[in-house]
């Protein structure tokens, strides 16, 4: 009897220790040391490692290689037979924005900022994590020639708006050309109504920005000369971002479809001495690859899809591959909360159409967008020193059978396919108890059906 009792106590003791160790491990996962072991690692920057491991310390990749051992106290994720790639970066999206993605009332609205209206509760953040996306450029729409400033965010689901921001990312500004801007198909009530009008609006805005710079310079000179009656010019939130573009402190994302309008923008940028950082969509970029490559603009395009409007008639699925082969840089973007959930497959299409290599295809949704956003020192590849933003897939991510198993940002797991299943059960239980409470609170209320979500109406579409 006493012996058995002792055994019980021993077992209890062991269980307690185990529980504590587990708790410690869980802690480690969020702040300490993690080892992902025995996976096929697709580094994107320096090829693949067949059976390798990644050591993560304090949210950063500490080491990558075939023969890594877990330090004492490290949490170990056994990824045998699985594939690890850098977190996908979607360089053109409109998720997590509250109160409208366009301030389309004026032709120039550079005073508006996506950063001001981030919505950390947008469920698309979580859904995109399930597709392996970890970083997104969430943008102002393309309703006007100069839209708002965009925000680079990490998809840290559960954090508040500030917790989403990718700190240190270079500021950006949205421009747009073509049909959306000249209000084709919309009730046209605002200048510009043509492509030449669009050029005029952008040029005028930059002239205004230059005058504004001069006014401030002059004011500062007068103050320096202790001029007591110098009145400071008004600080203009519309012109400040344009001044930053002229000074090279802010990059430009230019929505454009047709070759002629993109050439116009390149000439206009040369005229004012700034760079077009990227053409968004740039469906006809392949026609002017030489000019685009010479300017150094990046082409952030779709994998395929065409003829959904006149200016998309000449779109071809070889666009990204041609730009790549001509020595330029291309990215594949989603422009849609739905498409963002399979950007790996979108990238894979460039292997069929244009014959890009596996690594080149993966770079279209990882390293290249990191370069476009000037965050390639932090993310976009699996290299020591970079942020531990990683996706673990059950199959090769360029296969249609690949399903993301875990998505990690700064070493923290934000999506786990197993935990997701448990979470679904919990939310279903929560719903039931809430519905019961709701009925109790308002017994006169009409009953509700419990058919599944009206899913069809909620499929997000490309903003084009």
């Amino acid at each position, binding site marked *: 009897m006493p012996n058995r009792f002792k055994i019980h106590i021993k077992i209890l003791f062991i269980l307690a220790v185990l529980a504590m160790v587990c708790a410690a491990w869980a802690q480690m996962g969020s702040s300490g040391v993690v080892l992902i072991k025995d996976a096929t690692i697709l580094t994107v920057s320096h090829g693949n490692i067949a059976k390798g491991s990644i050591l993560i310390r304090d949210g950063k990749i500490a080491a990558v290689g075939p023969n890594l051992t877990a330090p004492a106290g490290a949490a170990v994720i056994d990824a045998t037979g699985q594939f690890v790639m850098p977190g996908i970066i979607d360089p053109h999206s409109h998720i997590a*924005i*509250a*109160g*409208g*993605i*366009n*301030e*389309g*009332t*004026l032709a*120039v*609205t550079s*005073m*508006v*900022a*996506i950063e*001001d*209206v*981030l919505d*950390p*509760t947008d469920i698309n953040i979580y859904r995109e994590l399930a597709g392996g996306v970890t970083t997104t450029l969430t943008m102002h*729409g393309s309703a*006007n020639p100069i839209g*708002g400033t965009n925000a680079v965010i990490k998809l840290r689901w559960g954090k*508040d*708006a*500030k917790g989403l921001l990718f700190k240190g990312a270079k500021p950006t500004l949205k421009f747009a050309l073509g049909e959306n801007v000249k*209000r084709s198909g*919309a*009730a*046209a*009530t*605002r*200048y*510009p109504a043509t492509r030449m*009008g669009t050029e*005029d*609006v952008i040029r*005028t*805005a930059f002239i205004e920005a230059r005058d504004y710079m001069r006014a401030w310079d002059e004011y500062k000179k007068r103050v320096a000369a202790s001029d007591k*009656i110098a*009145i*400071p010019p*008004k600080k*203009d939130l*519309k012109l400040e971002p344009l001044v930053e573009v002229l000074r090279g402190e802010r990059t430009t994302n230019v929505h454009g479809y047709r070759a002629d309008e993109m050439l116009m923008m390149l000439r206009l940028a040369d005229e004012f001495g700034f760079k077009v950082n990227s053409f968004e969509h740039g469906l006809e970029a392949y026609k002017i690859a030489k000019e685009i490559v010479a300017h150094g603009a990046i082409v952030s395009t779709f994998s395929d899809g065409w003829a959904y409007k006149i200016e998309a008639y000449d779109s071809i699925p070889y666009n990204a591959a041609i730009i790549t082969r001509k020595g330029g840089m291309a990215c594949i973007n989603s422009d849609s909360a739905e498409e963002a959930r399979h950007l790996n497959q979108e990238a894979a299409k460039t292997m069929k159409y244009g014959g890009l290599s596996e690594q080149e295809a993966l770079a279209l949704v990882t390293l290249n967008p990191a370069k476009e956003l000037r965050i390639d020192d932090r993310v976009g590849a699996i290299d020591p020193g970079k942020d531990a933003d990683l996706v673990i897939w059950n199959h090769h991510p360029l296969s249609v059978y690949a399903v993301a198993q875990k998505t990690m940002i700064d070493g923290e797991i934000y999506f786990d396919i197993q935990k997701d299943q448990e979470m679904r059960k919990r*939310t279903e239980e*929560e*719903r039931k108890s*809430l519905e019961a409470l*709701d009925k109790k*609170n308002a017994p006169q*209320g009409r009953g*509700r*059906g*419990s*058919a*599944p*979500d*009206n899913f069809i109406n909620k499929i997000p579409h490309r903003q084009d």
Partner: protein
Amino acid sequence: MTLTCMRSLSHRARWRIYTLACMAFLIAASAQPVKTEEPLVFAITNAKIIPVAGAPIEKGSIVVRRGIIEAVGANVTIPPDARVIDAAGLTVYPGLIDAFSDIGLEESTAARGAAAATATPAPGRGAQQAQPQQQSNIPPDERQGLTAYRRAFEEINPANRKIESARAVGITTTLVMPRRGFFPGQGSLVNLSGPEISQMVIKPSTSFFINLAGRGGGGGGGGGGAYPGSLMGILAFVKQTLLDADQYAVAWNIYQATPGAERPEYSRALEALQPVLKREAFVILAANSPAEIQRALDLAESFKLNLVLMGCGEGGKVASTLKSRNIPVLLAVKYPDRPATTDPDFREELDSLRRRVEAPANAAALAKAGVRFALVSDDMANPRDFITNVGRAIEAGLDRDVALRALTLTPAELLGVSDRLGTIEKNKTANLVLATGDIFDQKTRVKYAFVDGRKFDIVEPQPSPSGAAGRGGPGR
């Protein structure tokens, strides 16, 4: 002229006119005394008194003289000139203060213009140049919703029926705030008495409202309409305006200090905003969700505003932030409605269900965290619903005394009038509510309300004739 006319009339006709004139005078004169006959001294006796300032008095009296509480207590000598109201069976509360409402507000046509600007399409396509086009797209102050100079009391109609229905649930004082536009104007603190607005105003200007939902519609679309049309546009517009107001002060200071300096343009709106930047007036921002609250906090911080948050329907989720940053809250007890749908397959989003079911518990969560709040109705159509919803908050865990305080002393303190309002104490304004029981009880009815010492008999509102048969009639 009149005399010559009179001369031309016959003697008899002349007499008739004199008689009529005399009668008219008498009627007019007799109307006057009715008003002055309103007693100036009241004694409310045998009442249960909840003074809020101290412990309840089970059976006591209150003497009101010329609008002021002269005495209160269990043993009060009733002055011989007092009109005595035997309040046996009644409970007396301080008049309730609704610290953010639209009670009696009938916004001016100019202000309506600000809203109408939404519907006005911008000038036609094909204009010659970008510049003039954009200029004409920016309307003047009124149309732009930049009317920080408006003061609510100027747009209150003392005969507005909502004043009566607010009194009927015990509300005697309210901060009325203009609504239309992005800088709609300044809130006025008024007593719900009358009959003239001049008799109602306690403070003509107490605070400014910045309305981040100024256009109502929300998400700005691809075009059309006036700037700003989206939330980010509204935020940019608000920031630019505050920057302009700041620069305005700098420019005028330079002009006034130094002869030879250029004279800046005068702006009524930017002038009016100066107390906001000097932190002399508090600024009310409406926010409900944690993200909206964060946005309001950020805006207030970047311009060093003296912030008071209004709404806070989900404030309980960020109660610790509100507490640690010591932000006073005007907590609106508007609860979300069930989504209206006829779709049999409709399934409410879990988030929406959560928000709705958990709404009444929000006040208790804020109270538990120690956040200082007043309960407000915002723009609820029916004051009765306001009190009903306070009752639901109490059911969901809000302490009854805390609720009462949040409708009396706390708002009085927030509005800087706690020396005059918010409790039943000697020398305070005689704003009192005589109710048939606990004021938050559904069955309780208010029998009398005193506002500034004026007695109002509350009559049960008659069911409106269109009520039962009208809208919900058969066959629909």
